[in-house]
């Protein structure tokens, strides 16, 4: 546990030292704030005391930003060789993966925490459904965690950050939209399978304020598989 936290702290430090954290925070808050309050189907246009428009925007912004955060996690260490130094310290491969996963998740959660004033504002101007807002945040966190674990896996397979970024995007795109499109094109069992695989369906449920165990299990298994594969590909150095 101690080792995981040590790695998490270092990674967070590195996010802030390299300015990535500030850029992502500014971009995320800028985008989501702009589309929530000023432009498109913003809160004033919809005219409801709900953060649904914010959740819809964040659903996309987080999808684009998480691969940018995860791409360097392992690829950079592989390229510079520091991975050898890290893994010969008294840590297991799993602790390394967990530490890196947690650091990115904490960064995303802190970005989301900066949007709490949105919720407070809306709460004061109308009759907001607090439960739904909390569920919406939970949905965003679960979704980000899933994409972080996918991004971490992409980063573990290569020593090139661009490849890691594009690969995370590619895998993420399937869950984000392609499975949903395919679900509409197929009927029967295949359609059902694609429907189940599509992340957007599970996210919609949660962001509407309904917490279904199936959705939780879906996100949980996506995170687990991503982390499991990351650890596996990190351990694979032993074989080749």
């Amino acid at each position: 546990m101690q080792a995981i936290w040590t790695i998490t702290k270092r990674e967070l430090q590195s996010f802030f030292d390299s300015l990535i954290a500030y850029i992502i925070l500014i971009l995320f808050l800028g985008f989501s704030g702009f589309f929530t309050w000023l432009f498109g189907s913003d809160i004033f246009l919809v005219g409801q005391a709900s953060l649904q428009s914010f959740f819809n925007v964040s659903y996309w912004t987080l999808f684009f930003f998480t691969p940018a955060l995860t791409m360097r996690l392992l690829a950079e260490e592989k390229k510079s060789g520091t991975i050898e130094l890290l893994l010969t310290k008294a840590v297991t491969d799993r602790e390394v993966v967990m530490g890196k996963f947690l650091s990115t998740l904490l960064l995303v959660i802190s970005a989301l925490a900066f949007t709490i004033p949105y919720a407070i504002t809306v709460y004061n101007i109308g009759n907001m459904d607090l439960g739904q807002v909390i569920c919406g945040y939970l949905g965003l966190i679960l979704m980000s965690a899933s994409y972080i674990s996918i991004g971490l896996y992409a980063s573990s397979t290569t020593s090139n950050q661009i490849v890691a970024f594009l690969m995370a995007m590619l895998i993420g795109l399937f869950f984000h939209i392609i499975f949903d499109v395919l679900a509409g094109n197929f009927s029967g069992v295949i359609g059902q399978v694609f429907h189940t695989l599509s992340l957007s369906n599970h996210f919609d449920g949660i962001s509407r304020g309904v917490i279904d165990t199936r959705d939780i299990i879906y996100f949980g298994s996506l995170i687990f598989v991503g982390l499991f594969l990351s650890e596996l590909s990190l351990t694979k150095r032993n074989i080749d």
Partner: protein
Amino acid sequence: MNITVQSLSKQYGTQKAVDNLSFEVKTGEILGFLGPNGAGKSTTMKMITGYLGIGTGTVLFGEKSMAEHGDLIKRHIGYLPENNPLYLDMPITDYLEFCAALQGVNKEEIQKRIRKMVAVCGLNTEKHKKIGELSKGFRQRVGLAQAMIHDPEILILDEPTTGLDPNQIVEIRKLIRELGKEKTVILSTHILPEVEATCDRILIINKGKIVADGTADTLRKQATGQELIKVRIEDGSAEEILHELRRIPSTDRVELVDKNLNRFEVQSKTDTSSKREIFNLCVEKGWVLSELIPIETRLEDIFRNLTMN
């Protein structure tokens, strides 16, 4: 803590990087690992430190193997990989703190250990800089500092003195020698005088196999067996001296090296010495023996003989 390596092998594709290595390093011993490029030195070190999985064979630390007690053993190992990879965006002290925390150093101890390492490795003037801002030599010092930060029982150093200035090399060698008294040290290097200066034992490997194992002196004995001396004798004609030298029963081969200066090279027969006879000969003939220099086989030659087929 002793390290026992038994029939260690590792295969990359069809190429055998490490082929059935067996050796032992005891506490208080400094083992120098020599070999040409691509001989399997780094691969062996990577397997010992647990970065690479072991192909076949075993590596035991005391009684324990890395496979079963990985975490426990790793705490006792300090490792400096080749090329010395470091987090360039971290300040030195932060980095050392990170390494100490990962290696399970107590919170109260960490600052004390960092101060000690900064002093030992001569990093005091640079300690607040980021590692990326340092020159190669200072980075090497940081690499050494991180390897020793948790006061490990085992030190595995892959080319520890590359990039250091001559003063620092002397200091680091001295440090390694001192540490080696109570710790188990394996170090690899290409600098042969360094091995002689620091190591108790030398292990030369070539193409994944051990080709020599022993102290510098035993390697020399094995390599030569015959005494070789340079002699300069004045006050006589070169031809006469050459003739007389060849008549000495213990000499195997005598050559005139420099006619004007009367310099000769004398190789004795196996297990004999002809120094005494040469001296007596000069006394008898009234010549002046102005030079008598035993020539030691250089480690470089031994190395070349063993690793060039």
